[in-house]
């Protein structure tokens, strides 16, 4: 499956931040968006996930086997930045919530399939041992992994993460990036906005650089990101 952004302009309150963007994100790849603070990384993710509406152009999903367009929201899980910790919720309960379906009004308890999937995701993200711990009692790295489990349990084709991992240590970040990489190998398109150039160099399949209100796909192999990011600033 392919997420296509075709000649679209992004922004909000009628202020255009990006003009005529063309971008393809395929499932099975780990793409990172890098760029200075305030360059619009979040805007891009918000727009793709339909929290903001794009100002012009089109954003659509392109499937190999069927051509008619599919509902984007139903195929994307999106983790916004700066989430407040949900209070009074255990880890398992929190991840269970990711399986919410609007049409299940009277299903009070998660179904067997839900429980299995959630269990599986908790295990994969190495937070199974915290199942009955209150979310607020976890460390930053553990919280991060719970959120990842939350996204995984939604079983969507694309995963959009808008995360500042700045408060995590090297080892924790490495574990997290490794998990994302592995996730993308299970035919999921992972799109991450980050400042963590070290990790991006190690793990990303593709890097998109935001500079001067335009998106540039960096050439392979990915190295010397610092130079791309900080050189020739006008």
């Amino acid at each position, binding site marked *: 499956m392919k997420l296509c952004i075709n000649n679209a302009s992004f922004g909000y309150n009628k202020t255009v931040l990006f003009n005529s963007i063309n971008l393809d994100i395929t499932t099975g790849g780990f793409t990172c968006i890098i760029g200075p603070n305030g360059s619009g990384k979040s805007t891009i993710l918000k727009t793709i996930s339909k929290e903001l509406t794009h100002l012009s152009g089109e954003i659509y999903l392109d499937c190999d086997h069927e051509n008619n367009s599919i509902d984007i929201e139903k195929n994307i899980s999106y983790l916004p930045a700066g989430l407040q910790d949900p209070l009074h*919720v255990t880890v398992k309960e929190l991840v269970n919530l990711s399986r*919410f379906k*609007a049409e299940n009004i009277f*299903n009070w308890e998660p179904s067997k399939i839900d429980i299995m999937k959630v269990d599986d995701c908790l295990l994969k993200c190495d937070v199974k041992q915290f199942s009955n711990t209150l979310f607020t009692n976890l460390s930053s790295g553990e919280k991060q992994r719970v959120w990842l489990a939350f996204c995984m349990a939604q079983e969507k084709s694309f995963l959009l993460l808008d995360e500042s991992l700045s408060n995590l240590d090297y080892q924790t970040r490495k574990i997290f990036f490794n998990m994302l990489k592995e996730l993308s190998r299970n035919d999921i398109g992972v799109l991450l906005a980050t400042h963590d150039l070290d990790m991006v160099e190690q793990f990303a399949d593709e890097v998109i650089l935001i500079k001067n209100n335009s998106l540039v796909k960096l050439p392979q192999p990915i190295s010397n990101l610092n130079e791309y990011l900080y050189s020739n600033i006008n």
Partner: protein
Amino acid sequence: MRNSYTLITVLILISVGFAIGLLFGSSNLTIQDFINTITTKTNSGHAMIIWDIRMPRIVIALFVGAAFALSGALLQITTRNPLGDPQLFGITGGALIINALAVSGILTVQIWQEMSIAVIASILGSGIIYYCSSRDTVKPATLALIGFSIGAMSIAISTGIMAYSRVFTQQALGVIGGSTANLTWDNFTPVIPFFILGVVISVIISNRLHVLVLGDTLAKTLGVNPKQTRFFAISAAAILSGASVNIVGSIGLLGLITPHITRIIVGNNVKTILFYSIPFGSLIMIYSDQISRLIFMPYEVPVGLIITIIGAPMMIYLAWRHL
């Protein structure tokens, strides 16, 4: 599993309270009289006391307690504010004024019409809280302050109306302090549809409300419309509490303490709190009502005062230990 034992215990306690309410009272009925009346050896006087005086009162107490508690739970959950209470948030203010107008004889309409007007007034009043809670910039404390001011003002207006119309003190106390005295089946029937409506709305949105603990942004990504959900939750709270205030008057603290007690006993799950606050509210209300009628027999103390006197120390303890 533990919770189902809790439910059974609460139901047993409610049944005991029910029995106390039927058996004891200012007219001395012996247990023998009671059994005779029940087993159709008709004594019309006794039958009237049991079926038409004591019974409706207990049933009303059960429903009203449940309604206030559920309403408080809905508000605490939707506004993420531990101060959530229909009275503290000023939602019942409109219904209280309507009640005062009716008691004063200024508003003379059918009992059904009065109930509907009270519920509508209550929903309109809840609009302010809905507006505030749907804006990100309004802090929980601001919300409580606004609600509290509306509530205080509506009590002042109601008292003023009743003072102006020279309503008897006992009756005025019943409106301001809350009272289940002298209520009949006629008072009860108009509550039923509104109670059912409030509960049905709560049931339908409870899964969505649960998702709202994740915060609005994340809830949206799961397909929940936070504003719409909050609107229905606050409306349900307004319907339940407005209808209740219209029959029993203002009962403070019940909507505030019950969800907190429920939370401590059955845990933090949103759906569990919503569900269990119903029997817990009935339980607290039914026992408070028995105390209010039996403690200074044959005189009555407004039940709202009893709840406040019992509830305030509990609330102080809970706030100290758990918040």
